[in-house]
């Protein structure tokens, strides 16, 4: 498996925003204004909450079995988006803030990653901004305290190219990058160190994480 390869996939119903997140237990996706949860083991659906509220349509989702971070349209498709915490049990809105205008949101138990012009780290406790930088605003973002996964679009030879990237949470530096996803137009990513959840259209994918290059052998000896 090469970084970005599809390991497995699950088709969601009308997953119009193509977002995905989660951890090693639960996978989240969004479809037609609903937040879905899937069992990690077989990607069967374990929960669905139809918010049925198009004025607060969830746009992206990430988190763990214990917390959901997401964003939604702040009002009828106009104005600022809201950064939200949803309940894992019933997907109800626990908290929200309009201090940010997030394009995509992800994170883990103790961290929120926001794509808003650049990468922003937001405190889960009070939604204060901790740090920012790293990129021009990823098209998708997720991860946890140990890793940031992003989808980043850049121009190459006059065309837009999407790259899946691993960034260091401490300084946002790029640790790994691949355009292996280019022909799949994946719109959002989430996950943690060892798994990447990605969303595209009606599907949630598990993508292959970067493989650490082996250490160089040494002491080569050549004899007759």
């Amino acid at each position, binding site marked *: 498996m090469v970084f970005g390869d599809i390991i497995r996939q699950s088709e969601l119903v009308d997953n119009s925003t193509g977002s995905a997140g989660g951890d090693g237990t639960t996978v989240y996706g969004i479809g037609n204004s609903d937040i879905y949860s899937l069992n990690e083991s077989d990607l069967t659906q374990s929960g669905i909450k139809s918010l049925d509220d198009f004025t607060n349509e969830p746009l992206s989702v990430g988190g763990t079995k214990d917390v959901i971070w997401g964003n939604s349209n702040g009002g009828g498709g106009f104005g600022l988006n809201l950064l939200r915490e949803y309940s894992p049990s019933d997907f109800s809105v626990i908290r929200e803030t309009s201090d940010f205008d997030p394009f995509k949101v992800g994170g883990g138990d103790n961290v929120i990653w926001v794509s808003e012009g650049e990468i922003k780290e937001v405190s889960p406790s009070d939604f204060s901004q901790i740090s920012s930088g790293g990129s021009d605003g990823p098209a998708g973002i997720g991860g946890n305290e140990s890793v940031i996964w992003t989808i980043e679009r850049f121009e190459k030879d006059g065309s837009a190219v999407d790259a899946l990237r691993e960034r260091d949470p401490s300084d946002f530096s790029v640790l790994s990058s691949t355009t292996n996803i280019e022909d799949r137009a994946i719109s959002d990513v989430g996950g943690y160190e060892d798994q990447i959840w990605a969303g595209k259209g009606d599907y949630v994918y598990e993508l292959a994480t970067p493989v650490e290059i082996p250490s160089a*052998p*040494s002491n080569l000896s050549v004899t007759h």
Partner: protein
Amino acid sequence: MVSINLSWTDNSDNENEFRVYRTTKVAPTFPDDYTQIDTVGADTTSYTDTNAPNGESVDYAVTAANDGGESDPTKAIIETIGTPTVGTPFADSNSEIVVSWSKNDNSSAGSHAVDRADNGGPFQQVASGLSASTAEYATGTHVPDSDTYQYRVRRLAGDDELADKSGDVYVEYVVTITGTNSPVSAGDSLDVDVEVANNGTIEGDQEIALTVTEQ
């Protein structure tokens, strides 16, 4: 071609394979100047290259690789052994036929051995332990009896041949006796006409003057 044994230290536990590279280019740059010659499985720490070129300065490189990519290489260089080339035998000042050769390499590894086949029979080793820098072997005083000998040279390390055997060189003794009658006796002078050949091609005659001594 010669065989070269490679060994290395495995410093990773996540490799899928090791890749073995070789080049004969001068001051090579990795990987551009190298050719991958083989791969071996994870946890393997040795490899034998059975197709190394003779008599060259050969650079080897080994990397570890998996789906994530390829490590930096570990490198080593060796002067490989050449295939000896035997020249036309000649008679030295002691009237001995001398087999000479070129070793065709810059290596000091191993030693030379000389084999001889008598009158079309099988080759048998007649000399060994001749240093790598040795380039000739005096075959000893031969009591001519119209024999045909073939000589060849090998480069050895112990019993292992480090390179291909040389080609055969022929020495044919054609005895003519002058100044006396047969059978010869002590004090008679003999002129021995020796035909020398390289790989079956007669390249000339040499006259060897011998004096019969009593044993």
